[in-house]
């Protein structure tokens, strides 16, 4: 095998497979973690029967969904009905390509240099925005192709919701790009390292807007209108069963993880250690910097991502659901002006500091 073949084909393929595998596993166990945490908040037991403490529950769920009868409704548009979940799930996974799970150079494997992420694109953030918007098509097409009333209402809601929240979602990251001067995900983390401050401090409004829009983008409570089970039965995936339904779920949880990873990367310094990296948090450092070097970058990345995901679940355990019109009002009256204001203020400050 030639060197170029390995370098340009085998290594990227392996990276993709490893990250896909890890991500799917994380998604599967995310469902279990969600159920465990919600159960803890709601004073009840979580799944405990399959394996010790229900640890094999995600696998059992997967097998169950695989074995379920795959029903396509008579009146549905067969091609689109099958295509829609695939269209949803592909962008969700594609977004993982540019997320830097760890930094600090490359691994040496059999004498080849391997990066701990798939690609460091110089327009990483823009790429993420573009990819994450594509998921709407799958949801809309799924709702439309079902040829049923509840899914159609759900699809219409999600279209309106995602289009409105796409705008503050995009605006809120401009502040980060202005501070770091790059759109590369790796570059943003490096900039935070150089600045000795993570961007959640200067960009607190940006973080707020980004996180709220992120929750809305991934259709989670309190913004889960497209699939509001109390109103629309199950929203856009009412008619879906078996593996197609599982794909929608997979996409939803992957998007959650992606949004949490983006929050970690943009605002919480990605793979960086808390101490002594952030000077402002130095007072919290009780000799922790001595054990730090042992812990690799991806440990910190995963820890931070998990904490962000925990907030997701916390929201779900606490809040009721917004109403459609209130959601739109929140988006257009509050989120978008706030994000634009954030851009203006950040831009002004950056300009002043540069003088």
């Amino acid at each position: 095998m030639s060197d170029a073949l390995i370098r340009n084909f085998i290594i990227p393929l392996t990276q993709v497979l490893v990250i896909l595998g890890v991500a799917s596993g994380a998604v599967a166990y995310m469902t279990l973690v969600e159920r465990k945490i919600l159960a803890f908040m709601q004073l009840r037991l979580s799944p405990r029967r399959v394996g010790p403490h229900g640890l094999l529950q995600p696998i059992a769920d997967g097998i169950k969904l695989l074995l379920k009868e795959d029903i396509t409704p008579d009146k549905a548009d067969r091609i689109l009905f099958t295509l829609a979940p695939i269209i949803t799930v592909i962008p969700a996974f594609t977004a993982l390509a540019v997320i830097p799970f760890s930094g600090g150079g490359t691994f040496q494997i059999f004498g080849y240099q391997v990066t701990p992420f798939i690609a460091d694109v110089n327009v990483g953030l823009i790429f993420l925005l573009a990819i994450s918007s594509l998921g709407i098509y799958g949801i809309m097409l799924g709702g439309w192709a079902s040829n049923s009333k509840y899914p159609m209402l759900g699809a219409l809601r999600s279209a309106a919701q995602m289009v409105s929240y796409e705008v503050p979602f995009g605006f809120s990251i401009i502040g980060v790009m202005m501070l770091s001067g790059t759109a590369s995900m790796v570059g943003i983390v490096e900039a935070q390292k150089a600045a000795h401050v993570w961007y959640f401090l200067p960009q607190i409004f940006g973080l707020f807007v980004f996180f709220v829009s992120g929750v809305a983008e991934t259709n989670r409570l309190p913004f889960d209108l497209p699939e509001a089970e109390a109103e629309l039965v199950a929203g856009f995936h009412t008619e879906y069963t078996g593996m197609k339904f599982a794909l929608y779920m997979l996409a939803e949880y992957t998007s959650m993880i992606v949004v949490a990873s983006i929050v970690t990367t943009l605002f919480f310094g990605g793979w960086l250690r808390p101490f002594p990296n952030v000077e402002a948090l130095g007072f919290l450092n009780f000799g922790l910097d001595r054990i730090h070097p042992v812990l690799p970058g991806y440990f910190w990345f995963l820890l931070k991502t998990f904490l962000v995901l925990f907030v997701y679940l916390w929201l779900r355990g606490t809040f009721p659901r917004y109403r459609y019109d209130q959601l739109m009002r929140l988006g257009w009256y509050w989120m978008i002006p706030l994000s634009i204001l954030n851009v203006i203020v950040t831009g002004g400050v950056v300009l002043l500091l540069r003088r």
Partner: protein
Amino acid sequence: MFRTEMMDINMGPQHPSTHGVLRLKLILDGEIVTDTDVLIGYLHRGVEKLCESKNYHMIEPYTDRLDYVAAMYENLGYVETVEKLMGVTVPERAEYIRVITAELQRIASHLVWLGTHALDIGAMTVFFYCFREREILLDLFEAFCGARLTYNAYRIGGLPWDLPPGWTDRVRHFVKIFPGRQQEYDTLLTKNRIWLGRTKGVGILKAEDAIDFGVSGPCLRAAGISYDIRKAHPYSVYNRFQFDIPTGENCDTYDRYLVRMEEMRQSLRIVQQALDGLPGGEIMGKVPKRIKPPVGEVYHTVEGPRGELGFYIVSQGDDKPYRMRFRSPSFVNLQALPHMVKGSLVADVVAVIGTLDIVLGDVDR
């Protein structure tokens, strides 16, 4: 080139938030409800007709199956109606125990309402908190009469059993812990912005409309009318207790929420007073084995958790009623639904169904 048309959508009878087998036909303009058709009868069992072929003792278990969320009140209303028809006096101890169990039942019923209402609006955790407290109450009922849902707890003329030992202490314990637990629901909902947004100004039912529809119970009181049968036409021993009738001002879902929350507190007050004043003595009045009320007819109402619960019996001097008729509050209150949701969004329909607090067993009978 473009045209829009109304979409009629069928909500129920199998739908997660129609609280059973209610079926609504909604005519939607986009997401706005322009017209609603309430279709009922999916749980009709013909209890009224069945009662004509049962003797008076055998009817009581049937009343359990009407409003199965508050079966104590169905029992209470029924036995009091027959007692009224026969002119039986019930021993004081039995009356006090009836009041205690009935008021605890009101709390249990309101807990189901709060839990499911919040769940419909998306607040999942409240549901589990409410059912935690309801569990304590159901255990108490189980200790009292052996059943957790369909109690058949009273008898014509009194009670079948006295209280089990230690029961009053368990009730006192509940009375002590419940205000703290209610605080938890308060923290999760009362000042929550999303909850306010979802309930304020939603499903407005003005006082005059409420009276026209015959709406009773918390839905009427939230419209500002202080009408409670416990005060207006006191039955049992209610005239001996101090309690307030909470009323609302804005006639909306939020006010109905506040009224019911306050009713739980007032019920607790009544339970406390009844426990303190619980007399000893007999629990069964002088009633013949075979119940044969005199010829005549009688109508009696009690204030159930959902509103005015009425029983009408026509007796021909037989051991079976000639005609039996229930005035169920859920059925009457449900009439107001199309009026309340007209022009609102689909999400509000769910909130309004929740706030009306219907039980389909009570609607369809």
